[in-house]
């Protein structure tokens, strides 16, 4: 009788746990020590409890491994950016700024977290293809001629060739591949127009130009935010998607002020925090 009752209790508890009701675990633990329970059943309860704690340990181990994997991928992302920056040092801080500008603009436009993750990867690596461009063109201090510009344009295809080789980076291809397209179809490399241009690329294009205009480059001085915005607004519908221009205009000054004085270490720190918040567990 005693053994049967104990067995019934054990069965109830184990079935609850097997069906995902972990509140029953404490009851199971009690049964391992309880003198109301037959010794045989107490031993059985202990065995179940041991199995359970092994499962929980394995689950946590898995979680830790996934976190490590993600951290490794994010390190590689930064590493790739650092690589290209060694050839074209101008672009290092630019990559960090445009990534953060893009995220803020995307948030304002209501893009979902998955799209923003793709945008982060694509924005940070948008010019990775430049690693294949010769110094004479890449580092030329003045305007490129027609031939040189044609070669410079190939950085898009080179970039796609690079990021396309990683399954983790595949979703960066939209920005890498289409960040030079224009809303009216006059851009490169494909000549896509309007909504055919992926949204992340439409979002990125505007911050890329904005940061270029408002930064010092070897071939030009920098512009003030108001001037840059005027140029951008004038290109609404031609270069840029109108809805993106509309979303960006009210944010531009604040974004510029928050990022522009930051030195590289501060930019790196700011971006790491932003990226971490998008790549952590909660999808």
């Amino acid at each position, binding site marked *: 009788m005693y053994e049967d009752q104990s067995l019934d209790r054990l069965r109830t508890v184990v079935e609850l746990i097997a069906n995902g009701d972990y509140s029953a675990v404490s009851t199971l*633990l009690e049964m391992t020590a309880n003198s109301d329970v037959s010794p045989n059943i107490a031993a059985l309860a*202990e065995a179940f409890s041991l199995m359970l704690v092994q499962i929980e340990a394995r689950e946590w181990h898995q979680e830790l491994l996934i976190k490590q994997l993600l951290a490794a991928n994010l390190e590689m992302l930064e590493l790739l950016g650092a690589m290209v920056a060694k050839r074209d040092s101008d672009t290092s801080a630019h990559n960090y700024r445009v990534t953060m500008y893009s995220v803020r603009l995307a948030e304002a436009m209501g893009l979902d977290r998955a799209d923003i993750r793709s945008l982060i990867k694509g924005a940070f690596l948008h010019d990775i293809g430049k690693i294949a461009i010769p110094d004479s063109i890449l580092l030329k201090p003045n305007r490129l001629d027609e031939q040189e510009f044609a070669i410079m344009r190939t950085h898009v295809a080179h970039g796609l060739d690079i990021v396309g080789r990683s399954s983790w980076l595949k979703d960066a291809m939209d920005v890498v591949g289409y960040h030079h397209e224009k809303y009216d179809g006059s851009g490169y490399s494909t000549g896509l127009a309007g909504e055919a241009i992926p949204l992340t690329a439409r979002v990125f294009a505007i911050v890329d130009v904005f940061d270029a205009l408002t930064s010092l480059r070897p071939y030009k001085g920098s512009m003030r935010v108001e001037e840059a915005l005027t140029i951008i607004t004038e290109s609404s519908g031609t270069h840029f998607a109108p809805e993106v221009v509309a979303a960006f205009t009210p944010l531009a000054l604040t974004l510029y002020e928050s990022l522009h004085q930051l030195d590289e270490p501060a930019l790196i720190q700011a971006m790491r925090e932003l990226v971490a918040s998008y790549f952590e567990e909660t999808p």
Partner: protein
Amino acid sequence: MSFQSEMLQTEQGWQIALSGRLDTTTCGELEQSLLEIFETAASAILIDFSALEYISSAGLRVFLVAAKRAKQSKGTLILCAMPAAIKNVFAISGFLKILDVIDDRELALAQLNRA
């Protein structure tokens, strides 16, 4: 056989020595103590197992819970000087993959001081 845990707080962190049997009836207080310590960020705890005679599944669970909490609060949890039988239980349960377990107490102390 009962259970005892001697706790010593030093500049480098807490040192806890366990003795006796750690099971359902005796593990509650230890769990509470560990979780309380890890409530403070970057706390460090070294647990010496040399006098522990038996650990049940409930005892194991205490260390899983404590290790998770430590990770959350950037704390350090080091387990050392396990008798072979005890270490075996940890090994079979896969706990050696997720916990910092060091055989030699001096080495473990050195690691605690580095934390």
